């Protein structure tokens, strides 16, 4: 505590940030909670409906469950890229020779491109007529049978809209994990290696336990960001065809601003928040069990 501070000085520093935070974040959360118990189209009067929105969401809305299942697959694809691929590349990079700095910079590039530009790009990459990049490559290597309109087929569209989101942040998470790997004491790995440990063993028993806290942070970041993923599916397919690539976020957005059903949209929004908090809780639980074991 700073000597000579006064109550006023604390308030002067604390009130402006809290005020903005209240207006932009805290108040809207409360408003959403309240709205989720009402039915409202934005024009007529608010109609209190009790728990009806929640009952409808859990028991009578197949689109909600479809969107929830899609969100889980979207999350899995994103985590595959952002935790799996990024960890693999970070390790590769630690063994590579020259040019690491350039590789890091280039690898991060997709993260600074706007989602709108990325959606344009992937619309062309997935295109069927005229053939886009993927279909051209498939035809060239003799797998032309596999060529298909990736974004309009029910079976492929969900993975097709998830991959760009995973792809664009792989570099970011790779960078974070790489920084953590650099901090692993070289003597530890060297000692293990002299004892005859293979690269895999060094990774599993020395390196990974050491970077584990950072990996968990990465996991929390990647999971919460993926659960709120919206832009790319919204721009590429708008949840279509049908509801094949509908996420909870796009469904919530449409419910609010297409169907102007603000009450029910708030109910879905509340669910998305709870889903994020549960995800973080599960990851932390996993972390605690992991550390207890070792």
């Amino acid at each position, binding site marked *: 505590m700073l000597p000579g501070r006064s109550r006023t000085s604390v308030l002067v*520093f604390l009130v402006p940030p809290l005020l903005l935070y209240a207006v932009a974040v805290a108040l809207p959360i409360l408003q959403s909670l309240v709205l989720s118990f009402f039915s409202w189209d934005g024009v007529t009067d608010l109609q209190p409906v009790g728990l009806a929105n929640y009952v409808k969401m859990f028991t009578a809305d197949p689109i909600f469950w479809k969107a929830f299942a899609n969100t889980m697959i979207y999350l899995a694809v994103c985590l595959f890229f952002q935790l799996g691929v990024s960890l693999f*590349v970070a390790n*590769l990079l630690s063994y590579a020779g020259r040019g690491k700095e350039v590789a890091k910079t280039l690898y991060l590039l997709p993260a600074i491109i706007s989602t709108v530009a990325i959606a344009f790009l992937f619309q062309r990459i997935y295109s069927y007529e005229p053939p886009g990049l993927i279909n051209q490559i498939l035809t060239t290597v003799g797998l032309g049978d596999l060529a298909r309109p990736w974004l309009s087929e029910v079976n492929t569209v969900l993975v097709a809209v998830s991959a760009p989101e995973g792809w664009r942040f792989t570099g970011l998470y790779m960078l974070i994990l790489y920084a953590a790997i650099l901090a692993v004491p070289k003597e530890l790995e060297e000692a293990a290696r002299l004892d005859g440990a293979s690269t895999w063993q060094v990774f599993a028993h020395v390196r990974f336990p050491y970077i584990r806290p950072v990996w968990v942070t990465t996991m929390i970041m990647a999971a919460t960001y993926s659960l709120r993923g919206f832009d790319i599916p919204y721009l590429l397919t708008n949840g279509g065809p049908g509801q094949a690539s509908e996420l909870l976020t796009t469904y919530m957005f449409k419910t609010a601003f297409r169907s102007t059903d603000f009450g029910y949209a708030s109910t879905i929004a509340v669910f998305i928040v709870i889903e994020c908090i549960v995800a973080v809780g599960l990851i932390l639980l996993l972390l605690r069990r992991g550390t207890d074991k070792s």
Partner: protein
Amino acid sequence: MTTGLHAPVAARVSGPERRRRLHLARNFASLLVLLIVIVQVYPLVWLFVTSLRPAQEFAGGNAFGIPSALTWDNYARAFASADLGRYIFNSLVVTGASSILIVLLGMMAAYAIQVLGFKGSRIVMGAFLLGIIVPVQIALVPLFINYSRVGLLNTYQSMIIPLVGFALPTSVYLFVSFFEYIPKETYEAAALDGAGPFRVFFEITMPLSTNTVITVVFVNGIFIWNDFIFANTFVFEETMKTIPLGLQNFIGAMGSVDWTATFAAVCVTVTPLLLVFLIMNKAIIYGLESGATKG
């Protein structure tokens, strides 16, 4: 060392043999890194090449090969059909104002919590931390309603307020973790010299925080520059559109999609951030790394 990936406990290898293997593994790893970088960057290079490719050639099927000629026509059409300058200006205003607020407000809150200290500071910190995991979608409907009541739709503020609000938690957190490292004696000495909390803030805390400021600005700046969801929800007037929104609108403005011109527009709008990124990449990479590893 990638060569020994699946070996069980490898037999102890002699010195020169070890070095040879290490060398081989290093080359192999470098090659793989190069391949992955190509996969990662090729789409972006293609985007740029396409923006210079004659429109007929793109439509005529040769969309991915080496272009037969390079042309600036696409750029001319891009500028003719949309007010790209306006979008860039709007994005600069929103990103600039948001960044200043995120840094200033984040620093103030962290100063009150960590340096001045008060009863219940842990509760305030907890309230801020909660904001890190709350998804932005929760705020869309309430903010839309509130904005329409007070006439804030289609303004810069409508984007700046939530962008700052949702970035504030990480900002506060980063500044608090940094302020922990400033020794108490520094403040006590200043206080003995008669400096009040305000002078200490402006003359000690602020100048020492340069690195954290850079981290906070870059981590948030990229996301704010590219923000789509708030702009898409709160702004519909052409004159207030930021780059992501203007680009999306681009396709509609042309009726049938003029892809080469669209990609030219993408290139124009990506350029400012790309330049900053390439010039400052060391600082940005440092910022992103420390931003996450501290968390």
